[in-house]
């Protein structure tokens, strides 16, 4: 049914909040294909349905209607526990507010998802956590608590936590929302680096500047996809303000309006 290299294959996703007269149609039929190893940004104004889509793609919420195939398996209609297990195995979340556990070292924070692993496989969770922290360049901050780390470093710990289970995809909802420009670029560079290593990354943002770091941008408006196109992604290596302006779409993957 779905192509084997599709990580996300979603059709006609709708989400309705509330009932009766106060219904809010947050998503009104969203189709989305994400291939393994892709990095894409989901853009849109506030209230356009980005977070709602993220929550559904991240298995935190269920669509009101539609089909969602994640990594080859249908996940719409699963119960709370099944969704929790899928989140643990397949998804790595990065939040705007970092959401690290306070008074808990970076290493313990990163190890956390492995503690909820139910696959029964033998895991050296400490070693995996250490590896993940090294991948995000925090090998020397493992024993630091969030309060002893800068915002950028905290977000990198959060990225390491998302990476540690080797998930099918990483979902980042406004990951740079709490960071200054310089740190934002560093974090985006990290996402690019991880993506280059094969990690599938979905960025949610309302800022075009941030979205520009992804080679594919999808735009939502009022719960509908209005644009989905490939770009030449801005490269982090070019930190000078002149370079890497988003270019015109070279290929329109979906024509929506």
């Amino acid at each position, binding site marked *: 049914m779905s192509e084997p290299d599709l990580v996300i294959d979603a059709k006609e996703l709708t989400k309705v909040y509330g009932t009766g007269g106060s219904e809010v149609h947050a998503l009104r039929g969203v189709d989305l294909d994400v291939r393994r190893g892709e990095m894409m940004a989901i853009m849109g104004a506030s209230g356009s349905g980005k977070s709602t889509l993220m929550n559904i793609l991240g298995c935190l919420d269920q669509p009101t209607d539609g089909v969602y195939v994640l990594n080859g398996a249908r996940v719409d209609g699963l119960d709370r526990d099944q969704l*929790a*297990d899928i*989140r643990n195995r397949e998804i790595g979340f990065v939040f705007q507010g970092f*959401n690290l556990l306070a*008074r808990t070292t970076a290493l313990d924070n990163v190890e*956390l*998802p492995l503690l*909820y692993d139910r696959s029964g496989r033998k895991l050296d969770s400490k070693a995996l956590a250490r590896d993940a922290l090294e991948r995000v360049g925090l090998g020397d901050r493992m024993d630091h608590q969030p309060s002893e780390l800068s915002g950028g470093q905290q977000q990198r710990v959060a990225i390491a936590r998302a990476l540690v289970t080797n998930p099918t995809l990483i979902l980042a909802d406004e990951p740079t929302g709490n960071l200054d420009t310089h740190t934002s670029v560093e974090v985006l560079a990290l996402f690019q680096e991880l993506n280059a290593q094969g990690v599938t990354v979905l960025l949610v943002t309302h800022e075009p500047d941030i979205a520009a770091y992804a080679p594919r941008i999808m735009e939502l408006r009022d719960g509908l996809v209005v644009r989905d196109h490939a770009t030449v992604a801005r490269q982090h290596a070019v930190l000078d303000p002149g370079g890497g302006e988003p270019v015109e779409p070279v290929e329109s993957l979906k024509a929506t309006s």
Partner: protein
Amino acid sequence: MRLRRFIDIAVDSILKNKMRSMLTMLGIIIGVGAVMMMVAVGQGAKSQIRQSINGLGTNLIVVTPGASREGGVSRGAGTFNRLTVQDAEAIKRESLLLSGVSPVILAPTQAVGGKGNWRTMVRGVSTDYATIRDWNVSEGRLFDAEDLRGMRKVAVIGATVAKDLFPNQDPVGQNLRLRDVPFKIIGVLQSKGQTGMGNDQDDVILAPYTTVQTRLAGHQFIGQIVGSTPNPQDIPAAEQEVRGIMRERHKLAPYEADDFTVRDQTDIMQAAEGTTDVMTLLLAAIASISLLVGGIGIMNIMLVSVTERTREIGVRMAIGARGSDVLSQFLIESIVLSVIGGAFGVAVGFGGAEVIARLTGWSTAIAPAMVGLAMGFSATVGIFFGYYPARKAAQLNPIEALRYE
């Protein structure tokens, strides 16, 4: 494996909030400590009473005047006293099972002699009394049948009386005035020490009941008749035999109830233990209220903790914790809190029991089973009062929890 992790998480969270954890535990510490102390006092009283009743001598039967009431406890007061020396003599004469029988006539008396005055209890008894009570002299001799028959004014004094009236001298052969009647001391009893109720058993003077009856008591009635059998197995039969003899002597018709009560040591023990059990239960029940308050304290703190950590719960759920994982985490946290509190409470209970014992002179006892019980009870309190907050945490919606400010 999972459980160990949850315990780690719980201990971790407790250690991260040391002050709050301590205050939460304080309720359980005080509760368990109070219950332990109260039970210790009750158990101590019980074991002392048992000791002192056993100290009465084994295979003992006691006949008291008046009909028996609930639980074999005689309500002798107010009932017309109908036990006489002749009853005792009849039992002695007719019983086949009892090896010793003695009336006991109590006469509170001022004893004068040696160093001065001593207010004590003179007990008029027969020569069998020492055997029945398993009591011997440390010096001198006991009175014999001759003394009894001749109503001789001889006395055997307890160790306390000897110490108070004749310090540093041999009382045997000395004179003692009881109600202005001169008695000759012929022996000193071995020391028996205190009873569970704090009565000094050595504060006593034994004299022939014939003498006491005529010289000191001045009436025909006696407080009790004691007897003993050679074997404990004979006790029930002996009780029946004594009842028969007494009913016949008191000329009771078949439809008439006994106007006396025959009890053995088991009855006495049961009555006394029943009383201490009720007392222990009452004390423990009052102390349990503080444990209840401690439990409510745990629930309160856990609810605060769940609210405070809503975001943390959201994060845990987002990265794959199931509802049951969150439930376990908080439940284990409250159990760990209450069990650690319980352990401290046990220590406080032991310490408190020791302090009570020192201050009051009561004996206190904590059975090892009590420790297990206290720990089990603490864990139960943790589960009971931790469940609601934990379930609340487990049922949170991860999206809302993550958004919580």
